[in-house]
């Protein structure tokens, strides 16, 4: 396990972190909301996948195909029925409500699934690896995760850049009042954004659940890593999130190699370092109309 291997693992881990971070970044860009339950929703998706895989002996990809649309629907309803009611009341209410949801979800998962660690049956894919030569080998699953992350980012980029709704997203993120004058209904748009966000984070959660074990309380750390990836990469930049995730991943794997208890801490310290030196992140774009 040389250093090159460690760095490569970290880069691949970045793919997973980018998946977590994308939904968070999308929501913040369009609605200026931070969903504090973001990570917990991903763990909820992971548990749902575990249930489907264990109970119905489904392949995890099939479970994903079921859970992701379900979570997207949940996101849509959450925004429509709950979070949209908080519009126009400032920044405090959405933060507090999503924080409350985070606690509720964690405790509900604890009640439903106990404190045991679980894992989505990977069906062998977690052990398959690809030899890259020079004694370097990467897991197929990590590669697939990165690939999926890139595909999601491309898809999102196409949606936001090329479609009518995507234009509406950008216009609303720029200037919600004027976007309304164009006939853009912010409430429906926000619901769509939340649906996308939760759908993507469900993918992230299930990939996490295949890769490693998780438990009812794993959500908050996911939120933190997602947040750190977004900040390191820079607000408003989708691809920056991928780079941010990669940097975070490498920091964590390198830190863990130096000393087992220092993996996550190193990630936090790198994050704080970036915050000190370049608070706008590496690829920030000043888009918002002030």
């Amino acid at each position, binding site marked *: 396990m040389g250093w090159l291997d460690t760095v490569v693992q970290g880069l691949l881990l970045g793919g997973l972190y980018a998946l977590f971070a994308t939904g968070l970044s999308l929501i913040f860009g369009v609605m200026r909301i931070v969903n504090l339950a973001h990570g917990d929703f991903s763990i909820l998706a992971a548990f749902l996948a575990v249930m489907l895989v264990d109970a119905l002996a489904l392949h995890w990809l099939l479970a994903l195909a079921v859970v992701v649309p379900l979570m997207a629907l949940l996101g849509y309803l959450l925004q429509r029925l709950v979070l949209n009611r908080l519009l126009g009341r400032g920044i405090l209410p959405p*933060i507090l409500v999503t*924080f409350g949801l985070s*606690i*509720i979800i964690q405790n509900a998962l604890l009640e439903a699934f106990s404190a045991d660690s679980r894992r989505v049956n990977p069906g062998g894919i977690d052990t398959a690896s690809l030899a890259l030569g020079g004694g370097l080998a990467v897991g197929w699953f990590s590669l697939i995760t990165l690939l999926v992350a890139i595909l999601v980012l491309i898809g999102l980029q196409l949606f936001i850049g090329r479609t009518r709704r995507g234009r509406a997203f950008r216009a609303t993120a720029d200037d919600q009042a004027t976007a309304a004058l164009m006939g853009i209904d912010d409430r429906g748009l926000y619901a769509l954004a939340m649906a996308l966000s939760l759908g993507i984070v469900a993918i992230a959660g299930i990939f996490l659940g295949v890769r490693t074990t998780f438990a009812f309380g794993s959500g908050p750390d996911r939120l933190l890593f997602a947040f750190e990836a977004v*900040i390191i990469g820079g607000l408003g930049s989708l691809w920056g999130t991928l780079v941010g995730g990669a940097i975070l991943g490498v920091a964590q794997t390198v830190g863990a190699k130096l000393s087992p208890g*220092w993996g996550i801490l190193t990630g936090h310290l790198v994050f704080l370092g970036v915050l000190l030196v370049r608070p706008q992140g590496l690829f920030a774009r000043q888009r918002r109309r002030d």
Partner: protein
Amino acid sequence: MAQAFRVQRATRASRVGLGAAVLAIAALSTLPFWADPASMRRLVEFIALLVLAQMWNLLAGYAGLLSIGQQAYVGLGGYALIVLADDLGLDPFLSVPLAGLIAALLALPTAALVFRFQGGYFAVGTWAVAEVFRLLVANTGALGRGTGRTLKAVFPLARETREMATYYLALALGVAALVGIYVFLRARFGLGLMAVRDSEPASETLGVDVFRTKLIVYLLAAFGTGATGAVIYLNLLRISPDAAFSISWTASTIFIVVIGGIGTLEGPLVGAVVFFVLRELLADYGSWYMIVLGTLAVSVMLAYPQGLWGLIAESWGIHCFPVQRRVEVDDTPRP
């Protein structure tokens, strides 16, 4: 067109409230002489949570700083107590305010980092820093790593003496916090603070130094939270990083303040009572307690954002701890 007017602060309810508060404190002071140790410990816990809630309320409800990282100072205060009392040999009870000071000192570099953020990102930033503190402590051998440490400095004391001293210290902390915040808000600084909460740009044009105001409040809250953390672990005697830096401290205080009413002094008191009553009722149902509490907080936020106390105050116009100033004009109402 000069009119006679007075700036009024006290209301009838506040005078009643003041009287009731004095009575309550007097009654609570006699507790060690007739209550059992378990009740005393419970009350210490209650007061601790109340002070934590007041501190969080000061930050979010008055300064507009929504922090979900206050657990950092609970943990720092607790560990500071251990180090001061066990390692440095200081008196454990005197170490409590010192622990608060240490927490406030560490809040300075924290603020330097997290004040770069606003709103939701500020919140997550404070949490990230709390996690850093937790992990640093969990990786430090001298602090007991993941298993934590036990407060040994109090062992020489007789158990009753220790429990009574802890109780009175907690009571003193609770009173000091309440009085301190009340006085603070009524002072000119407090006025500036509430102006900042209501509108930062407007208050800046009026000459309020927004950054300095927020920083001072953040440091004060860190001090209060740190001192409370020390009292908590004086009470519990056993500290570990996962418990001391746990987000459930913040979750509990947020729920208390939201349910009771953000931005008022009476709100956290009401909320803390609801919190404890619910805890007793749902004691046998494990995590349902948090689910119910969380659902209640979310519902309150959606439907009655001013909280329980806000509802009461609105219906009856009561302010027990008034920090507003009302202008009473001696004139007939204008159209």
